[in-house]
């Protein structure tokens, strides 16, 4: 799972099915003051409505807070809203509408960039849900850290070794083997994450408010946060390895 690739997990078809999830950021049209029931346009005067800065990215794109999102549906919704907000279509409109068009387009772009990548999406959701999980401290993965620091020593040795010398060749082979192991580990973490994402979504779909469900929810978020963090460490050292031994 590359950061820019989707997970290919799209067996949930719950999007837009729950109208309660689509909380509107405002209820009154800025122009005609009538109740706005449409998503981004007033039913009565058809004026574009601003996306509030407080609107989270999921709501902005009309998706429930889930970690698995069908990338095609997300893209389709993004294109639909991009067209609807595009500044080109507002050139002959009032200044207010032009400003809304620009503002909405900017928010929409950030929202799409964040949600289309499963890792960024998960990090964003953790931020949104942080209130509950902030207290749950993760202990740093000491073993992984030791391993990274040891590898860094080997990397330094490699850099200091004479080019094309036997020592350097040996170090290179060792580093290459480490790289493969770490890449596999990153892969395993991502598989693990996908499973946790599915569990989280199922829990949210279920919507239980029991204390047991809350505990389970926090446990999942904590686990996700921990693996996301460890994945960043592994990714960082792998990038360093690749950059050094090519």
């Amino acid at each position, binding site marked *: 799972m590359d950061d820019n690739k989707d997970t290919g997990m799209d067996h949930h078809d719950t999007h837009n099915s729950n109208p309660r999830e689509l909380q509107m950021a405002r209820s009154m049209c800025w122009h005609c003051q009538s109740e706005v029931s449409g998503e981004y346009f007033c039913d009565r005067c058809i004026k574009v409505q601003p996306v509030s800065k407080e609107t989270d990215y999921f709501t902005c794109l009309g998706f429930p807070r889930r970690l698995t999102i069908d990338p095609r549906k997300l893209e389709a919704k993004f294109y639909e809203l991009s067209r609807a907000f595009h500044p080109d279509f507002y050139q002959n409109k009032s200044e207010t509408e032009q400003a809304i068009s620009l503002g909405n387009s900017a928010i929409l772009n950030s929202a799409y960039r964040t949600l289309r990548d499963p890792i960024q999406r998960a990090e964003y959701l953790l931020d949104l849900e942080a209130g509950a999980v902030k207290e749950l401290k993760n202990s740093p993965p000491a073993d992984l850290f030791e391993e990274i620091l040891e590898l860094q020593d080997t990397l330094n040795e490699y850099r200091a070794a004479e080019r094309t010398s036997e020592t350097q060749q040996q170090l290179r082979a060792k580093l290459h083997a480490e790289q493969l192991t770490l890449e596999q580990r990153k892969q395993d973490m991502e598989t693990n994450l996908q499973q946790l994402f599915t569990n989280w979504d199922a829990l949210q779909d279920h919507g239980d408010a029991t204390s047991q469900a809350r505990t389970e929810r926090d446990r999942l978020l904590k686990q996700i*946060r921990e693996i996301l963090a460890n994945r960043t460490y592994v990714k960082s050292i792998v990038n360093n390895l690749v950059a050094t031994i090519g």
Partner: protein
Amino acid sequence: MAYSEKVVDHFNNPRNMGSFKKDEEGVGTGMVGAPECGDVMKLQIKVHNDMIVDAKFKTFGCGSAIASSSLATEWLKGKTIQEAQKIKNTDIVQELNLPPVKIHCSVLAEDAIKAALADYQKNADGPAAAAK
């Protein structure tokens, strides 16, 4: 982004790079990481009669992270435990002229100092206290 002269100096000539054995008497180890950028920092102190007699570090990360931990070990040497507690990340920012985007590196160094001190304390209190 241009690094300040002091950062470059610490980066090119890191002070006190290396490590002590974890279970050596009087040694406290602080191991911290920044999950946002993937930097890892290990900072160790060696304490004798409440005085930090030696300090070492190993850092995997950017130049600012290396410089921050290198500077931290320099400052720690010769300080008492109580004095060491008072080192703040803002002191490091000031000394190294870190730009706003690199302030988190100094925070990491402060966290590492705190973790090393806490680990030393835990070891000094003995296994009996740790088991409580």
